[in-house]
């Protein structure tokens, strides 16, 4: 079977009787088997996916199939899928089974999406290389010596290597866009609160967003419009209406935009030369298409990551306090007293990076340092958000690279945590501000490693963002 890039081509062939969902699911299962070494899946639901595929085939014959009939998806191991394993790639959630479906997952299932398995990721979504997993690292299908990015590395590789059509990840600081760029596919982080977080394992609650990996903007738009919207289980989720993102792609075609390009991102020394060139080329092509592009200053660039790390580690230390060995998951065999049970369970159950972030978060929230670090970062967050929103008062979009370099070698940044954190330099702005952003494939470097192009839009402007992304995908 040929690799499919879009749901519409799958549905065409399903409707014409050229393929079946069972055949399609077998095609993905075969690819998963052949590329097992990539370690993209933690668990594969072979029998269940085939059974569901047969059901969907029957519904297609009946004419009762849902809008996602024929879409085979992967779920990052941070998304609740009832009665399936869920452990945030951590030892501390060993044997845990999800009690309910995440709202986003439920909505995709209701439209007949077929879940083929759960994807490997960095432990509790903390990492930029997918090397911090209790299940071992994920390899990039473009070059097996290189990382796929993180934290949603398994989800990105699953789409990259044709093991499923679409996957859901989560993006707290770039965890969907950065691996999408490293793997040469599309990755979307919607506006904060656009998709309910109910059933998403919490890392940094004021940053966390469920995101989407796909090979076409059409599939991304369709999945977003189905997953987004009000939910009684998440009091922070936006009540603003969900437009028909997929329907608007054609409607908004040909619109001309005012676009800001952040000067500091293009001119920074740490940017790989080929990424600089690819970004400039795309900007030139956008100008040729009639868009106005101006360089703007954003002198706050160097404060983004410090703000991000203070706030997310604080939120993580609080969110991860629930893993104590009492109600679920791993409990240390060495649990003589309640306190040793807590300490040994957490010390044995969490990996190094997660402990580092819990410790930092506990430190910045501790009484003596709270104002100097935590409150300071919350103030910086407001300044960064206001400044970014000001740019978006004058411009429709901000464009910038996704990553400073293409996919790096496994182990390249393991020695120094700060070096690893710098991989998120260009992606955290959208999380610190809550704005929607997309990573779009933008060619490759001399070694054939994919490059990404990032577009940030104003709050809840996914409709325009996706229509514009489609235009960028179609640029020469």
């Amino acid at each position, binding site marked *: 079977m040929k690799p499919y890039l879009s749901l519409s081509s799958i549905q065409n062939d399903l409707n014409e009787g050229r393929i079946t969902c069972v055949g399609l699911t077998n095609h993905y299962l075969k690819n998963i088997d052949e590329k097992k070494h990539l370690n993209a899946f933690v668990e594969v639901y072979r029998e269940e996916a085939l059974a569901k595929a047969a059901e969907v085939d029957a519904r297609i014959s009946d004419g009762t199939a849902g809008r996602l009939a024929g879409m085979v998806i992967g779920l990052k191991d941070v998304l609740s899928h009832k009665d399936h394993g869920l452990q945030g790639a951590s030892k501390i959630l060993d044997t845990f089974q999800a009690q309910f479906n995440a709202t986003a997952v439920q909505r995709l299932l209701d439209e007949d999406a077929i879940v083929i398995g759960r994807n490997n990721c960095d432990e509790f979504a903390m990492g930029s290389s997918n090397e911090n997993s209790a299940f071992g690292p994920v390899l990039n299908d473009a070059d097996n010596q290189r990382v796929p990015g993180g934290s949603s590395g398994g989800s990105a590789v699953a789409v990259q290597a044709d093991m499923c059509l679409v996957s859901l990840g989560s993006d707290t600081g770039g965890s969907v866009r950065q691996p999408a760029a490293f793997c040469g596919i599309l990755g979307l982080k919607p506006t904060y609160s656009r998709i309910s977080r109910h059933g998403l394992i919490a890392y940094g609650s004021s940053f966390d967003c469920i995101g989407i990996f796909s090979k076409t903007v059409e599939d991304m738009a369709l999945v977003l419009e189905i997953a987004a919207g009000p939910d009684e289980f998440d009091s922070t989720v936006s009540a603003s209406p969900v437009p028909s993102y997929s329907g608007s792609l054609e409607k908004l075609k040909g619109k001309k935009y005012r676009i800001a390009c952040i000067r500091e991102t293009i001119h920074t020394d740490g940017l790989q030369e080929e990424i600089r060139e690819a970004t400039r080329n795309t900007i030139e092509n956008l100008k040729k298409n009639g868009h106005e592009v101006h360089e703007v200053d954003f002198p706050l660039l160097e404060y983004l990551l410090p703000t991000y790390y203070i706030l997310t580690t604080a939120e993580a230390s609080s969110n991860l306090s629930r893993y104590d060995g009492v109600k679920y998951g791993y409990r240390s065999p060495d649990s003589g007293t309640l306190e040793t049970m807590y300490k040994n369970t957490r010390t044995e159950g969490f990996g190094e990076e997660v402990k580092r972030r819990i410790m*930092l978060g506990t430190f910045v929230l501790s009484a003596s340092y709270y104002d100097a670090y935590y409150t300071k970062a919350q103030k910086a*967050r407001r300044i960064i958000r206001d400044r970014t929103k000001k740019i978006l008062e004058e411009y429709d979009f901000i464009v910038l690279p996704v990553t400073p370099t293409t996919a790096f070698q496994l182990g390249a940044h393991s020695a120094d945590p700060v070096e690893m954190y710098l991989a998120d330099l260009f992606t955290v702005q959208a999380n610190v501000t809550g704005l929607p952003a997309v990573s779009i494939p933008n060619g490759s470097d001399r070694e054939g490693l994919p490059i990404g192009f990032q577009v940030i839009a104003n709050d809840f402007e996914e409709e325009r963002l996706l229509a514009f992304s489609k235009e960028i995908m179609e640029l020469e």
Partner: protein
Amino acid sequence: MKINKELLLKIAHLARLDFDEKTAGDMEADMTRILDWVEKLNELDTEGVEPLTTMSHEVNVTREDVVRTHLSHERALKNAPEKDTDFFRVPKVLE
């Protein structure tokens, strides 16, 4: 900000984590390195700026205060590392 052994152990206790001789040294060094790096923020003038404390655009989302069962007793106990028929079990707290 230099993290010394005493401060590390205090924070570790608050976080309910343990560090032995070897891992304590690494964690002290990593935390010191990361804190020095985030202290870049001190350059930024935040005088008179209100902290940004919520990212949601919704205000006071409430629901009717009615009792509902979200999880049955049996399901709630399903993932417990140690349980009896009714309760989670933990090491003895009171003598």
